[in-house]
């Protein structure tokens, strides 16, 4: 049975609590980036690009049954790692649950600065886009 969003977030917080230093946390983020389900080339379009001043993010969402499944990519490795964490949380969830969820857990794992609206790395817009997909699929149903 698919875990609920909150359970996944707790699990991630738990994983990060093993690390004492920023470099171990960052290394883990970098490694998680390698597990990211990548956007298929056909969806790596200008339409699916979320432009930050600093790094680019591609996001694609599709409906599978009553769930929304996301794939993504980024040209920066740290951004990619954080996307992987967000996708792990939000992908394969029901639209209503996605819309309800927040991202406060990012603070707890010490990556808050990457989700700052002023960081211009596309991640804040990416979360908005995830919710937009959820909203669109919910409206369709």
């Amino acid at each position, binding site marked *: 049975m698919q875990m609920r969003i909150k359970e996944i977030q707790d699990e991630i917080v738990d994983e990060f609590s093993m690390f004492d230093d920023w*470099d171990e946390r960052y290394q883990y983020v970098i490694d998680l980036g390698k597990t990211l389900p990548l956007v298929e080339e056909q969806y790596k379009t200008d339409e699916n690009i979320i432009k930050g*001043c600093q790094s680019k993010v591609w996001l694609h969402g599709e409906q599978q049954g009553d769930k929304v499944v996301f794939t993504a990519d980024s040209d*920066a490795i*740290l951004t990619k790692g954080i996307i992987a964490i967000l996708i792990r949380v939000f992908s394969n969830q029901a639209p209503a649950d996605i819309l309800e969820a927040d991202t406060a857990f990012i603070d707890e794992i010490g990556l808050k*600065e990457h989700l700052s609206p002023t960081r211009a790395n596309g991640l804040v817009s990416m979360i908005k886009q995830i919710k937009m997909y959820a909203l669109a699929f919910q409206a369709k149903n």
Partner: protein
Amino acid sequence: MLDINKIRADFPILNETVNGKPLVYFDNAATSQKPKVVIDAISAYYQTINSNIHRGVHTLSQLATDAYEVSRQKIQKHINAKHAHEVLFTTGTTHGINLVANGFSKFVKEGDAVMISAMEHHSNIVPWQMLCEREGATLLVIPMNERGELIIEEFEKLLTDKVKIVAVNHISNSLGTINPVKHIIEKAHSVGAAVLIDGAQAAPHMHLDVQQLDCDFYVFSGHKACGPTGSGILYGKEAWLNMLPPYQGGGEMIKEVTFAKTTYAELPHKFEAGTPNIEGGIVLGTAIDYLNAVGLDNIMAYEQELLHYGTEKLLEIEGLKIIGTAQNKTSVISFNVGDIHPYDIGAIVDKMGIAVRTGHHCTQPVMDFFQIPGTVRASFSFYNTKEEIDALVAAVIKAQRMLS
């Protein structure tokens, strides 16, 4: 010679720690840190003479007006302008460029051309594009070579009597290139074009002499030159400033207002509508005094030393490539390491207390030219040290290890 320890003691922020590490501030091309004399002068202004200028008969207003005008004269002397009224206070470089680009609607007609260069900051591109769109003029761009130097032969080919104004930077913010502006000015004048020099990156690092350059306009920001944010200068030759229409209407810029007609004030007030950034203008003078006390020749010599040391040390890192390798450049090193995204390096070195800029530095066309998403940019100032450069090198190596 600079007494670097003494200088560092002038800058309180250099004692700060960031992410638990001593701050290494290498984002000087974005904004400089402020010496204590500047910080104190801001506070002293508000504590002793704060009042509105150029209109009150009361003593305090007179004191503030005097301080503001004394600062204007200091800056006049500093850039060697002929007259103090050729020195206009602005909010910064962008403001100065917009003021001139707006006024140039009067001189640019359909079919004319405006010339900029391939290495301009967005602030010295967009106002000219807007001017061209308004008037139906063409925007010409002086190209650059792989080292990040303007191709002067191409500039000369592009230059015709259709060109009404040439706007180029003195020093490139993303590449560090020092441009041959004197030559550009001379050539532009030979076809009757005016020249605006964007001196945002030059003012903190070198002697300025607008009469020797013979430029028609010169702009810079206070905040990059140890001065307060929101202060800046537009120098313009008297004849040009008299011809240019006012930019903004309001108080202070008028001689007489009736509902039928307003007559404008004399220079410089014609361009200084409304209550200006009084404290910024006054304290910019303090910052200029500070730079002159340290000595711009000393600053330039020491920063060149840092540039050479930094270039040599950074190039020892495997796969590191410097973007902008002009013969004649200032202490700006833009680089990439292999195909690692600049954002990744910037975020990791930040964790080690090192402030660098990453991204396109508001020069997207430059990044497009080099076909890169951006760079990591370390820009050194005279309060930086070789030890700090060593810390940067170690941090970049660590980032490279983590990311590959």
